[in-house]
Structure formats: structure tokens, C-alpha cells
């Protein structure tokens, strides 16, 4: 009773048969072995499971894998290219934008889309753009600085 799906995950085309009820986050974690995407609530509130589906930040805990059939999915593992950190990853490192690190992959993926939409956001725009991601450690200030740091990087890749 598996449903065949094809998803391009981090630039690799993957073909699997999956249960229709399999959540995208469990597909990524259990089928693809990409455990960088975390599950914090299963109700799309905390955002720890955020990935990019066709370039848009999506909470993968409330999307079925079959709904991503034919899509391109980018997870945190696919963000660094050739070992070179994405500017948002670098920003989180430089500005101490993480403590326990559990919300971090989702937070970073949301920030990537935020900067895609608005390359030079104000502090308020960053905070607004991250309203779908919860962090219990940092108090967000360093996260906001991290995103601002990334916004100031000249890299075209962003």
C-alpha cells in the first residue's frame, strides 16, 4: 500500500514507496536518514521541523511526504555547499545564535527564506519573519543579530 514518490532532497533525486500518512519530517528523518530536521511539537507551532519545499519554508511535521511528491526539498544538511557554510549558518555561529541547537535547523531554514524575500530586513522584520519558530534558550536577540549579520554578507548565494 505504499505510494510511489519522487522528491529531490538536497539536490539528490530520491524514489521511495511510502505510507500515505507518513509525515514529510519522518520521511526525511527515517527514510532519508537526514536527522538534522527536528520534531518539537507536531502541530506546526514550534518550527523546529522547517525545511524548504520548492524554496518556501514549510513545517514538515504537518505535511505528508506524498504532498512533496515532485518537489525539491532542502534541509539543513543541504545548506552548506562544498563544506562552506551558508551565510545564515555563519551568522548563527558568529553571533551566538544558538545554545542547545535543537530549534536551530528550523530557525536557520526560516531565516533563509526570510532573507530571500527581504534581503535587507530591519530588526522588526526579522523578528516578524521568525514568529513561526520558537527558541527557549537564546531569548531570540542573538538570533535576530545572526540574521542581520547574514543579511550584511555580500555573498550572492543567499
Amino acid at each position, binding site marked *: 500500500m505504499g505510494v510511489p514518490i519522487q522528491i529531490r532532497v538536497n539536490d539528490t533525486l530520491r524514489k521511495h514507496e511510502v505510507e500515505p500518512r507518513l509525515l514529510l519530517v519522518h520521511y526525511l528523518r527515517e527514510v532519508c536518514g537526514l536527522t*538534522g530536521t527536528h*520534531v518539537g511539537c507536531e502541530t506546526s*507551532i514550534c518550527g523546529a521541523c522547517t525545511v524548504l519545499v520548492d524554496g518556501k519554508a514549510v513545517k514538515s511535521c504537518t505535511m505528508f511526504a506524498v504532498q512533496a511528491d515532485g518537489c525539491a526539498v532542502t534541509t539543513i544538511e543541504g545548506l552548506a555547499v562544498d563544506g562552506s557554510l551558508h551565510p545564515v549558518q555563519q551568522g548563527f555561529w558568529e553571533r*551566538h545564535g544558538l545554545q542547545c541547537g535543537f530549534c536551530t535547523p528550523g530557525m536557520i531554514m526560516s531565516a533563509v527564506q526570510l532573507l530571500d524575500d527581504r534581503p535587507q530586513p530591519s530588526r522588526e522584520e526579522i*523578528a516578524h519573519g521568525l514568529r513561526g519558530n520558537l527558541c*527557549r*534558550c537564546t531569548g531570540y*536577540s542573538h538570533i535576530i543579530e545572526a540574521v542581520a549579520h547574514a543579511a550584511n554578507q555580500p555573498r550572492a548565494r543567499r
Partner: protein
Amino acid sequence: MSTITAETTGYVGRAMKRVEDPRLIKGIATYVDDLRLPGMLHAVFVRSPHAHARIARIDGAAARAMAGVVGVFSGADVNAHCGTVPCAAAIPDLKAPAHTVLAGDRAYFVGHPVAVVVASTAYAAADAADAVDVDYEPLPVVADPEKAIEAGSPLTHPALGTNVAYTWNIGGGDIDAAFAQADRVIRQRIVHQRLTPMPIEPRGCVASFHPGDGTLTLWTSTQIPHLLRTLLPGMIGVAENKLRIVAPEVGGGFGAKLNVYAEEALCCHLAMRLGAPVKWIERRRENAAATIHGRDQIGDYEVAVKHDGTILGLRIRTIADLGSYLQLLTPAVPTLTGLVVTGCYKIPAVRMDVVGVYTHKMCTDAYRGAGRPEATYLIERLMDLVAGELGLDPIELRRRHFPRPDEFPFKTSPGLVYDSGNYDGALGKAMELARWDELVGRRDARRREGGLSGIGVSTYVEICAMGPSKAMPAGGWEWGCVRIEISGKVTVITGATPHGQGQETSFAQIVADRLGVPIEDIVVLRGDTAVAHYGRDTYGSRGTAVGGSAIVMCIDRIVEKAARLAAHLLETTPDRVEFRGGTFGLTGGTGKRLGWGDLAGEAYIAKNLPAGFEPGLDASAFFEPQNFTFPFGTHICAVDVDRDTGAVQIVKYVAVDDCGNQINPLLVEGQVQGGIAHSIGQALFERTVYDENGQLLTGEFMDYALPRAEDIPDYVLGSTCTPTTVNPLGAKGVGEAGTIGATPAIANAVIDALRPLGVRHLDLPLVPEKVWRAINRSRSTD
């Protein structure tokens, strides 16, 4: 001895980015849920939907028949094989129910585990858990701790015959005389609402038994692998020396993971019973319902004052809602409140009476700050109430009661000795950073225009770096080990268990400076009892102050040993050897110098050692603190309140914290900011709500309002530095400071904003509805 003049290489005190970050930002770190073992089974718990019910029957037949299901177990199947969940608090005459790992014939709170299903996949286990048929017969519920102590109340545990778990008191000075001499007594009832810690990673564990040697490994999302290794043997029958606990990457704790939980013991038991590794990952609803809650104290507070504002005494009666069971430190939390209830003030007499009460709710226990936020909130609210009633300046009132810097060590009326402090220094710096006069001018101008604006101040002290073993339930020391490898690389092992605090970096900074080696050559290991043989783990802002001090002891021993070896190799005596810049040479000489690689090579190859010299170059140490530390500071908050909606906006937030010497100011800043965010939550949004039937209404992030990025103001942060004298680092600890210092500053600011309307006090959280009602109550004619 040699002249030890280790030059610092300038790591300590530097705002360095963390060495642990690359694996975390790349998504390649390993949390418990990321572990996969061959043949691993998945456990899902069946939990009571009732706050109090007789369990008439548990029928697992349908579940057992489902594909992939390996077993369904109830309390009748496992409780005889597992010890009860332990409580380590030493409270005299404590009445405690037997806390079995699964419910017996009754369930005592919503979320109480009544059965566990094990299956080959997590989905199969969840399906089967839904198919377990439990017959509950609901019983009378007591959810309100004040009603719980009334005659005729339903009993949480009928077998105990009372809902009162214990009464406890602390006192100092002559409280009766204080109230007899008072010109006035100012009274306030204050409710410290129940909170849910909500780390973003829920709990979880994987247990794996190795029948060949009878050893068991438990990977668990915990702050306390070492305490678990001490306490789990009594529950699962595996001896301490056959038990390995690993806290891999841990996604936040905040006290919620400072505990021994039934699920951990059960997974160990099931792994042995089923002969396969068993994994359990908590879901968010379970986390909200069945991981410890915090706070939940209701108190009547009385302050005896003279007309001039001199505070003579403080009398407190507190009802602490313990929930339905005792977890590790449940009854101890209110006692911590009592220890520091006089805050940073000279208050000559104090008396606090605590009644610990059982209710049909999840247990409370140590949530970030654990007892001290309650103490700080109440004393700081009371200072404002006293100032308000007597028409005094709240700043001046506080100042008048500060001990002076030259009065330290300062003995408080509850009996603590505060190590060091300069409270006025922190207050003055905070007022300067806040541009106090401008801030007051802005508030007053807005008030003249009809706006609601307020300023709140909190001058706090906290008790940290826990602590002297004589005052701790199970030892308060910390263990560490430093090993110079044969290559000259350095391995540091700590018994502290950082889970976001960044000690892989800050400990490396300490070691790099003291050994004179590049920080890249240092690795810090933690969180595995097979690697860190002993430890007391991370809680109570103790990691750096106590754990870091053990590392300093190791380094001192290694340097001393290395100097003896260097003297031998340099054909001199140890007293003529100096240690400088990471190398050993003749004091004042320009000749040959030996580095760590040279000495380690000799020490391990061991062909040319001094007579009687023990090979190897490592040291381990237990650091025993002689006292707690007492970090302090001042937080200032300015708010605007919207008259029409009751919404509170923080317009300025200034914090000056003094945690003694800072190893890494960037990490200190992160701890302070994170702590303040918890306070913003407590002050403005967060409250764990049970209805009168004991139903949990805040069982999701949907209903429990964590602060979001938009709720956070742009902080102005500063620090002062008053090193502690009780450890060699001079560090006091900072993990809880923000959570302790900030809540009252925010609350006082909101109440100050409403003061022109005649509002004297509101309990937290100051959600718009509550504030709006207060505004409109004052407008109405009745």
C-alpha cells in the same frame, strides 16, 4: 616548587564563538531521537485522560494483535519489577506516596502513564496505544491547593489521609518583636503561577541491554546522567558499575530534565525484558502534561515597617502546590525560596512557613531558578508596595537596605552568608545605562498626556554554584579530568553536563590559558558516564563555577607534575624551573624550553623519568565548594500599556548583572538574554492552567504562550564584576540570573503604569485581558 607564572594567552574573558556550533548549525549533531540501533523497538505510553480515576481494567488484546506490536504492559506487569521514582529532598516528616513507574489501580493526574506499548516502529506503537482499552471510573478531584487543605477536601492520595505532604519553616531574628515594633504592616497575597519549562526538544531515551556482560546503556535527554547512574540502579536492578548513561546532544533543559523519570526506568526494564533496544520519544502533549512544571506558590506576605520605610521583618505563609507526586526535588524548591527570601536587603527578622500540598496535577519541581524567582519576585514586589504605601522612592528604599560592599561576607537573617557584592554599584550602573532621569521624564510626560507608562526596578541576588556538599542532597562537588595526550593535545573531561551552556568552549578557554596551548588543541568531553566517571551534572548555575574549578585543580596538578619532569630533563631542580607561555625552562634562562608535546612524550614513553615518577601526564580532581555564590544585579524595565487593549509593550530594558569573573562574555550575554525571555514569558504570557476537574488546558504550544521573537525588546546589557572568593575562577554563575532578576522588573513596571488608576497589585501573567480588566475596573463607578 617551581615558579608558576603561566602567561595567559588571552582566551579567558574573550567573547569567542563556540566550538560546539558547527555540528549544530549543519544539522549533523546527535540528539536522542537521532539514534538508531539494530533491532530497536519503539515505546509509546498510554496516559490517563482523567485527573483522578480508578483504573478498573486495562485491555491490551486488540493492541497486541496489531501488526508490529511486541508487547503491551500495564502497572500490574511492570511495577513489581521496577523500583519507585525517587525523591532526593531531605524534608523531615515528609509524607510521600509510592511513585510507581506506571499507575497502579488509580491514576492521579492527566498524563499519568497507565500502560506502555512496544512495537517495531513508532507509528505502529502509536496506533496500538490508541487501541489499548482502559476502563476509568472517575473519582473526586482536588486541583486547587488552597481547597486541598480545607477540611473535607477530596484527597489526592486517600491512603495518605491528608493532602499535606509536609510543613516546613525557616526563620531568623525576632519576628514577633519586629511586628510589635512596626508602625505599619503592609500585606499582600501573591500567586506565583504554575509554569511549564517547555524545552524545544521533548524528553526521550534509548535503552540497550547487553546480555553478554550484563551491562545496560541508556541514552537520555537529561541534565543529570551521573545522578541517574546513582539513582537508576535502585529502580532497574542493574548495578551502578554496569550502567552507562549518555546525555548526547540535549535540546534544552531548564530543570525539566533535572529529574529521574518513570519512562527512563521503564525503557531500561523493557530493553532487558524484551531483549532489544527500546526507544521512547516524548511528544509535545506528553511534555506539557507529564514533564515537571515549575513555581506554583501562593503566599500571604506581610512586611513590618517603620514610618520612614525601615523594614523590620518579613512574615510569609506559602502554600506550595506539589502536584500528585514527588519528583527528584519537588518539596525542596519552596525551601530554596525561604533561604533567599530577604533578597539583597538587610531585613533583621524573617519567618516563612511552607505547606506543601498534593493535588491531582503534574508534579512541580526545579524550573530555571527553582525557588529563587519566587523569592525575588515577592521581595521585589513588596519593596515597591512598601515604597508606594509610604510614599517613598522605590530606588531609595532599596538602597537604604543594601549591605555595603565592606559588609561582605554578609550574613542574612535566614542564615546564609553572601560571599561578595556591590549592589549599589550594579544599581547605579543600570540607572546610568537606562538614562534614568530621561526615562522618568518620558514616563511622566506620557502620563500627563493621558498615557499609561511605568518603570519597574528589580535589584536581585541569587544563590548559585550549587553547592557545598553539606547543603546538597547528594554531594555538591564537581569532578574533572585533564589529560595531556602523548601528542601534546589536551583532553578535558568534566562531570558537568552542559546542554547549550557552551562549556565545550568556555572550559577550553580556561585550559588554553592556564596550559598555554592553542584552543584548537583542546577537546572537552562531557555527558557520558563511561567517559566522565563521576559528576554531579548541570543545574543551579553550577557548571562553570563548580565544574570549571575542578578543571583548574587538575591543571594545577599537571603543571606541578610537569615541572618535576622538566627539571629532570633539564638536569636541574624543580624550584629552578619556570612555566611560561606553555613551556618549561630554567627560571630567567634563555636556553632550552620544553613544551607539552616534549613532556608528554617523555611521560608516556617513560624511558627517562625521575626516580619514583609515575608515568603519564593527567590529573583528575573533585572540587568541593566551601559556600554557594551569590550573583546579583539590577534590571530596569519601562513599559507602555495600551488603554484600549491592555497590551503591554516593553519600551526599554536594561540589565546589569554581576556574575563575578566572566570566562566568555558572549556566552554570558546569551544566558542573560535567554533568562530574561523566560521572565518575559512569566510576567506577560505564560501560565499552566488546570480547570477545577484537573484537566490540563495548556497542553500544547497552541495554548501555552511561549515568547516569540517579536515579544523581545532591544536590550541594553551591562555588567559589573565582583569576583567570588569561594572558587579559583572567581566565577559565580549566570544561567538563572535573567529568569530571577527580570520577572519583578517587568511586573513592577506594569503595576507602576497602572498606579495612577489606583492599581496596587496584579498577579502574573499580565496578559492583556487581565490588564484591560484592571484598567476598566478602575474606570467603573463601583
